């Protein structure tokens, strides 16, 4: 959306309704999920989604750090989303920026809505998301990776959390924006769905849409999440199908 005063704006939708990478408006980018990608985390997952590469690890339930965040009746869910310096075109200075802190907050709140945190009072469930290569939709990719990592860690949850961004670019409502669509499009709307209840636990929007467009976008996003949901479940099935020793080659 940062296009005010920008230099070159590409054509985002062809007259034939095809997008910059040839996808149709309701088409997802290729996605591959590896559950148990790390040896030392309690749970982990690696997500390759379009040109995104995102690793997530989960530790816990464990002692709360810093101590004063401890809660007597439930586990505290902590999330740290971070982008590697080399994950974007212009090198990102290491360290937490405000964007990362906001994303960490909404992701933690999304999981807090589905994890059975009351089962582990006075503990912390720590989610770490590292974006290694970014190409729009990293918070959704991170959420998907973290959700699989939580399952891999055996944390009890009401459901997995598939996530995807919908948006508007070249005048059309489209699913799963890539970088150019995010940078030069009209709106970006990341969401995360609880498939069993049909409710959204993450929803943000930046840009502009009419109410009719928003209605279309919400429906398209729910449909996209249901597609991602199948890939997540398959990744966990694959994980349980192999011996632990082989699971993280």
């Amino acid at each position: 959306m940062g296009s005010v005063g920008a230099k070159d704006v590409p054509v985002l939708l062809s007259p034939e309704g095809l997008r910059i990478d040839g996808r149709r408006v309701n088409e997802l980018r290729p996605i591959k999920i590896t559950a148990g990608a790390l040896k030392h985390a309690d749970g982990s997952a690696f997500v390759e989604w379009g040109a995104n590469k995102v690793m997530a690890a989960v530790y816990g339930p464990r002692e709360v750090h810093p101590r004063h965040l401890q809660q007597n009746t439930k586990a505290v869910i902590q999330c740290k989303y971070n982008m590697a310096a080399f994950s974007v075109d212009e090198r990102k200075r290491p360290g937490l920026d405000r964007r990362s802190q906001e994303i960490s907050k909404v992701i933690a709140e999304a999981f807090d809505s589905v994890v059975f945190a009351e089962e582990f009072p006075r503990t912390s469930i720590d989610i770490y998301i590292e974006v290694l290569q970014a190409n729009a939709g990293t918070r959704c990719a991170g959420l998907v990776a973290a959700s699989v990592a939580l399952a891999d860690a055996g944390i009890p949850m009401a459901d997995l959390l598939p996530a995807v961004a919908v948006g508007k670019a070249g005048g059309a409502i489209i699913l799963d924006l890539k970088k150019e669509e995010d940078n030069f499009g009209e709106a970006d709307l990341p969401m995360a769905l609880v498939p069993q209840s049909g409710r959204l636990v993450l929803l943000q929007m930046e840009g502009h849409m009419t109410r009719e467009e928003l209605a279309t976008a919400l429906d398209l996003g729910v449909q996209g999440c249901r597609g991602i949901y199948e890939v997540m479940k398959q990744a966990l099935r694959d994980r349980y199908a192999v011996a632990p020793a082989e699971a993280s080659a």
Partner: protein
Amino acid sequence: MSDEVTAEILTTHILDLAGQGKRLDGRGTDDYRKVSIEPGFVVTADGSALVRIGDTAVLAGIKLEPGKPFADTPNAGVLTTNAELIPLSSPTFEPGPPQPGAIEVSRVVDRAIRAAETIDLTRLCVTPGEKSWVCYVDIHVLDHGGNLIDAALLAGVAALTHATVPAKRFEVGDADYPLEVLHTPVECTFVRLGEAIVVDPTFDEERACQGRLTVATDETGRIVAMQKGLVGAFSPDDVKSTVERAFQHGDRMRAMIRGGAG
């Protein structure tokens, strides 16, 4: 009785009331608290407004300074929004670096201002690639009675609406002139209390709620920002119906912002 126990009893009570379509302060589910806007509260700022929503008070101040445009937007000025949830305003805030809650307010307000094209950033460019105005929107919460996001954007947009570009002071032009405002975004926040979705939550309702949803609209019928926050969930239909309500409240407050100008 500890604070925690009191809070839990209050939460239960708020949820019980909500089940009967009632609220602790007697409002209906779609009633907003009394809103007041006082522009020009701070004369050292280039624009300012003190906004009250019930017992929430938020002060926004605008400062404009010459600076350098970003490399990827050489023809545009720079807009920076910063919300400070200072410990003066609530027993729950502590001194120190900005907490995630303060950062969220800053960023949601910033997105609404930016996406609505509230000000035309290209008009803030002085010399392409070299010199442009940097517009700071600084938001201080003074009294935290809930619903900070709505109050913060209202204060920010009202302050921008009555702001002056200090061109003479910085020797960029011959005279100061009013900052031109193109659009008027207004945010409207709802919380879920059981199956009820109520507008303009108080501090206690926010603590009791199962999900918060903010929708920013502008006067042209566009939705310009949304943010779901806190623990809880909304169905797509919930989202669609809050959007309708957000437009109605937004139009009423837009009239106030313009009225405040008089």
